């Protein structure tokens, strides 16, 4: 049994991926940095996988954050793995966004304490002056007809799948493939240092990939299975759920 289930994390307690991450970090009383992010990667992916009915557009946001987490995780296990400049800036951005949201969160209670407690009343609504019919220069049948059209236009739209998100998910699959290759390479380079004691951790990276792939599949597109991942699949049964502390 893995320890995370003991946290009794009710689904729906988090809002978006950043909120979920912050919750996980705060529950463990950790600071926001690459070490803490690496340590909650699996749990994050688990939580997201467990959430059955994420709105379509939201899945992508969760998955994108998951991919950055996986980078952090891989790097923490395989120091030889070199990240591209863009990947490094993704990691840095994620940390900064989390720190900022944490700050905003710390301010919300202050608003909550004050809101509606000792309000100041604007009043004056009764101080009505005389009603005098006074049309304006911009009032006409055609300006009204333009206005109603634009009002109807701006009613909340029926959901459409954002194309850019779909594209991101596709490129995410490529990114994972790519990363998997680099990890393998990095393993062979650092084989001696990477003793048996770390074998379990290697598996956890693989499980992370599998879980992430699962997310992608649940998501916007049904991602075509690639040979590369087939190999990993075979190992799935022997791996099990990793322990992380």
């Amino acid at each position, binding site marked *: 049994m893995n320890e995370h289930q003991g946290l009794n994390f009710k689904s*729906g307690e988090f809002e978006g991926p950043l909120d979920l991450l912050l919750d996980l970090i705060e529950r463990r009383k950790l600071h926001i940095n690459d070490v803490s992010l690496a340590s909650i990667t699996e749990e994050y992916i688990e939580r997201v996988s467990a959430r059955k009915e994420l*709105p379509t557009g939201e899945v992508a946001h969760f998955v994108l954050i998951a991919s950055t987490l996986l980078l952090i995780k891989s790097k923490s296990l395989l120091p030889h793995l070199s990240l591209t400049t863009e990947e490094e800036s993704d990691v840095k951005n994620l940390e900064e966004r989390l720190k900022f949201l944490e700050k905003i969160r710390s301010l919300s209670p202050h608003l909550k304490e004050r809101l509606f407690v000792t309000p100041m009343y604007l*009043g004056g609504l009764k101080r009505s002056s005389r009603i005098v019919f006074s049309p304006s220069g911009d009032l006409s049948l055609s300006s009204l007809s333009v206005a109603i059209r634009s009002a109807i236009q701006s009613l909340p739209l029926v*959901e459409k799948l954002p194309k850019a998100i779909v594209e991101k998910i596709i490129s995410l699959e490529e990114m994972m493939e790519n990363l998997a290759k680099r990890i393998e390479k990095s393993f062979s380079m650092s084989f001696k240092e990477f003793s048996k004691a770390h074998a379990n951790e290697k598996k956890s990276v693989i499980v992370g990939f599998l879980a992430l792939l699962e997310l992608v599949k649940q998501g916007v597109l049904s991602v075509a299975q690639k040979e590369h991942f087939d190999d990993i699949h075979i190992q799935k049964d022997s791996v099990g759920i990793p322990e992380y502390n």
Partner: protein
Amino acid sequence: MNLSHSLEALLYFKGEPITIAELSKILKCSENEIRLGAEELSETLSSRGIRLVRNEDEISLATAPEVSSIIESLEKEEREKDLGRAGLETLAIVAYLGPLSKSEIEYTRGVNSSFILRHLLLRGLISRKENPNDKRGYLYATTIELLSHLGISSLLELPELQEIKKEFQEKYSKAKAKEQKEKESEEESS
């Protein structure tokens, strides 16, 4: 908080004369105390933009006589200025889809519309009557003066009225359904 301050706030909020008897009830003190408080407030306000007006049994705030010309120019400005995008949009919604309640208008616009509705009321472009389905609320509709200004004798003569009503109904019900869904997913998480 001192009594004259409470009096000032109450009179401001009400925006109309209040009797000494009523004030004594609200502020839980004697009528004599109210009179003394009013005396004090009157002195504080003696050289300000608003003044205290008293008669035998009621008091009220009012703008200072020196500023009456400015108040007039405010009224004039308010009556002559363009309705602007928000004003036209609200008026069009009332004309094409009315009579509507405030919350229906706000739902359609997606923003709080208290001030803009009040403005349209004061300009005589819309009027309101009690909502038969909700005693505390009102229904807003266009005025006859507006129609004649637009040169039409009935709302039926608004351009494309039927198409717009129909299009609105379709989009409105879809939007409502979608919002319900979003609301559930976002609330679930709050």
